[in-house]
């Protein structure tokens, strides 16, 4: 293996790492995301995720604190016993949901892009 060979390999390795890093640091964002919040099966409100907001709604089980930042939304604080909705964390892609069953709350993201989970051909 010549020196230039080794350089080529190192270069490709470096490029791979940089690309992988780049994907991590600059994830693609979606525009025009709307969060549809449903309580007990009925639409409560639809909020565009284009600003910063922190509000509380009354779930069936107790108050639910919801935090919105540009492009993402999460449940910041709840009183339900399992805290699954809060542990879901931020969601930012259309199709993603946060669900709290005790509160009968569903937050779903709606956007123009259709995100496929898998493709089989």
């Amino acid at each position, binding site marked *: *293996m*010549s*020196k230039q*060979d*080794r350089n*080529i*390999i190192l270069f490709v390795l470096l490029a791979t790492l940089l690309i*992988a890093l780049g*994907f991590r640091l600059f994830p*693609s964002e979606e525009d025009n995301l709307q969060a549809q919040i449903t309580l007990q099966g009925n639409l409560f409100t639809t909020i565009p995720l284009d600003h910063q907001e922190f509000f509380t709604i009354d779930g069936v089980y107790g108050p639910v604190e919801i935090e919105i930042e540009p492009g993402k939304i999460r449940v910041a604080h709840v009183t339900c016993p399992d805290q699954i909705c809060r542990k879901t964390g931020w969601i930012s892609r259309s199709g993603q949901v946060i669900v709290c069953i005790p509160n009968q709350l569903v937050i779903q993201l709606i956007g123009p892009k259709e995100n496929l989970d898998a493709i089989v051909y």
Partner: protein
Amino acid sequence: MMKSRTITLAGIFTAIAIILHLLEAGIPNPFPIPGVKLGLANIVGLWAIYTLGLPLALVIVILRVCLGTLLSGSFLSFGFFMGLAGAVTSTLIMAAVIKFLPHSSAIGVSVLGAVSHNIAQLAVAAVFLNQPGIFYYLPILLFSAIPAGILTGIFTNILRKRVPAMAKTKVN
């Protein structure tokens, strides 16, 4: 009019390439990642560039993809187009590397060939499926292209040394 020796060599190269292609499809893949192949048929492509020059190498490679997929029933399939794009692109890139990076042996050339092969295949897949997100696969593919490229490069080096009849080179 081409020398009959050249035509014969081209035919032999094509046959070997097709055999390697089919063989590789028949053995279990050491890489558990989908879409990652050893690319043994690229040995012949690279060897052909050295021995017969780029134009014939391109013909051999295109023939290999067409005939190989005809024989394995995947002609004009999704995999055919990906394979065609990858093979042609990598052949062109490898010829360029041989010309502009003359100090690299077949190993360096083959690594860059494998890399460009994978990128071209990803590009075709992204266009066909209309999913640019498929490029998230790029780091994994590139990382696995390195050992595959080194392997085929080592084989090409050995073959060029050991088979002098096919070593009368047009390109160094």
